[in-house]
């Protein structure tokens, strides 16, 4: 009987502690809801209205989403966003991994290379995009000038005017800027690896590739996973780079979801339409965030 009373008391105490914990968290929950939750829910509501800047929001049901289904530019922008994200992430991961492995070796001038390779990440995005735009210019851009002077091409490549090239041109800049993030994240992970494992593997006759494949890669996989997921979310939402280099053009050939959202909101003054474009990709981002949260939990 006494034992039962003890258990009941312990249970009551646990419930009290939980209640206290919740109560202590309440201020933070209120702040987070006010800063993020309310605007998010409001945005979803507005996507079901005919809201324009400064105007009343009248409920229009699924009209905005139905319009999106029939909007060719929306589908083109979504396709471009997926190509942009997958292409950039693959390139950044491969090149970042390669450079991290190289910089982890005892090479001459390692500090210099590490510093130099950080520069693209440190440069403000606007400066980088504007500079690349100048470099891509078909008339006075340095890239075409170098290609022609070295005999690689006879005429300039239309980096910014050929609809088959414009998205690729913006991807190059994103990859250039994003490699340092991958490189330094992976390099950090590489430096925590125990050298004895490699020595033991060497004694057992494992070559460089096998050491990399069976020891290095599994050991750094969680860091690669989190870095890739974070960068995927950032790349998916990248507006500045595309907008400043091509403006999403010509004829929407490099339009992505963020640039199309901007065009709808500020060029067409269609706020609810713009929000519906942004809201339509939230499921994709939620999936990525869930994967990230799980990977983070696993790694910790």
């Amino acid at each position, binding site marked *: 009987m006494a034992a039962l009373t003890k258990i009941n008391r312990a249970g009551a105490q646990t419930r009290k502690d939980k209640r206290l914990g919740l109560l202590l968290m309440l201020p933070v929950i209120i702040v987070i809801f006010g800063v993020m939750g309310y605007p998010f829910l409001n945005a979803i509501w507005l996507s079901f209205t005919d809201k324009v800047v400064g*105007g009343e929001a009248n409920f229009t049901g699924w009209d905005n989403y139905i319009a999106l289904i029939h909007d060719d530019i929306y589908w083109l922008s979504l396709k471009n966003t997926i190509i942009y994200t997958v292409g950039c992430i693959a390139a950044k991961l491969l090149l970042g991994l390669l450079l991290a492995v190289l910089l982890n070796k005892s090479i001459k001038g390692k500090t210099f290379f590490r510093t130099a390779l950080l520069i693209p990440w440190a440069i403000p995005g606007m400066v980088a995009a504007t500079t690349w735009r100048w470099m891509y*210019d078909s*008339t006075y851009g340095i890239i075409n000038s170098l290609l022609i002077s070295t005999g690689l091409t006879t005429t300039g490549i239309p980096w910014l005017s050929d609809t088959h090239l414009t998205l690729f041109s913006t991807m190059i800049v994103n990859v250039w800027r994003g490699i340092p993030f991958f490189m330094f994240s992976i390099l950090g992970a590489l430096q925590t690896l125990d050298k004895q494992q490699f020595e033991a593997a060497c004694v057992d006759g494992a070559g460089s590739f096998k050491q990399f494949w069976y020891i290095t890669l599994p050991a750094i996989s969680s860091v690669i996973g989190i870095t890739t997921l974070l960068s995927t979310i950032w790349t998916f939402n990248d507006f500045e780079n595309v907008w400043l280099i091509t403006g999403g053009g010509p004829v929407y050939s490099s339009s992505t979801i963020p640039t199309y959202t901007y065009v709808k909101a500020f060029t067409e003054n269609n706020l609810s339409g713009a929000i519906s474009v942004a809201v339509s990709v939230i499921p994709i981002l939620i999936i990525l965030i869930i994967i990230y949260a799980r990977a983070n939990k696993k790694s910790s």
Partner: protein
Amino acid sequence: MKKIGKTLKSACVLGLSGALLVCSVGCSSSSESSGGEKTGKKQLVFWDKSEYVTAYNDMMKEKVDEFAEKYDVDVDYVIVNSGDLEQKLAAAIESGNQPDIIMGDNTSVAEYIASDQLAEVSDVLADIDLKEEAKPYAVFNDTEYLVPLSLTAPGMFARQDVWEEHGLEAPKTWEELKEQAKIINDPDNGFYALGLPLGESGGGDAETFIRTIILDYGGEVVNAEGEVTVNSPEVLEAFKFIASLYEEGLVPPDATTWDDSGNNSAYTAGTVGVVFNSGSLMGTLKDEYPEIWDNTAIFDYPAAEEGGQSYTLGGANVFGIFKTGDNTETAKEFISYFFSDTDFYNEMVEAIGGMWQPVINGYDDTEFWQDPDNAVWLTAASNLTLTTAPAPTTDTAAQGFSNHLCTKALQNIVVNGMDPQEALDGLEADLNELYQ
């Protein structure tokens, strides 16, 4: 002991919740104290466009301070980059913190008429001696909503040295310009004859140029009765002509993604022979590229045929007053005060160096405007036509211009190889949707 622990826990919770409450109350009370209610002093929030020539913002600040002191008003004068104005205004309007006055280009400011944000300004305009050519820029939906501050007529900048080198005269027709362009075009050496932007992300240079050619060729995008009349043989001919300039390689290929700075950059880099631009380019050339300015001539706009009507489409800088703001009357008082000192106004316009043309009568014969370099802008301004002409100046017309629908149609022809008639059909459908 248990009681003490319980009391401490409760105190902790109350303390944290209290801190949050204090914080929120603190936030609201501080904003109240910054408002005018407590002190009884009038308030004015003025968002001004950041101008290429800094003299403008300096002088406007001087006038604002003078007004603030004389009328005992707290004025918050904010200079906003023109590229950011729309986004910042959208956020301000949605949060209910819109300024009382904004200054920007007429099509951008007019966008807020549709959402019933701007106040009628007939009472302010009644005291301003506006020039005839400036009056249309005040009216929208048959009501005066905007106060013109300056006209911004464009000019045809041409490399005189190149024209002289080939023994060419200023072209009188668009076809003649094209023939001359073929002569001076030298892409192998990085020089293109024409710097005509065709990107949809710009502020409207491309759309203005296309609509100029349409009018010159006798076409109309929307007629004076507000009917969509773009699908006509005249507009088709204009489209074919403009497209041919790109298709025949007379324009740099990247121009299809240029915004409004693209043509400026190309001209200052010496890689194009002709651009159509406002006087802002003249200021840049004079200050930073004097060798190019010395070799530049401002040609008259050509016409579709010799002796035919030649239009110069352009805009204006205007004030808009938010009726949804708290200080509409103070805003009107400021604008009236600003225009009451006409000598100061003229001094300001002249300080900007020709890229702005005056909207009030009485200053055309000053030494500054008699200078041939500047007189050309005054002449252009006197023939200035609204970019949406001949359509009635409505918010729909402004939206049609801001959406760059003509530019997108032309892009489809030039970039995607679309048949001009098909592009025109698409443009007509887009305009009909907008006007419905």
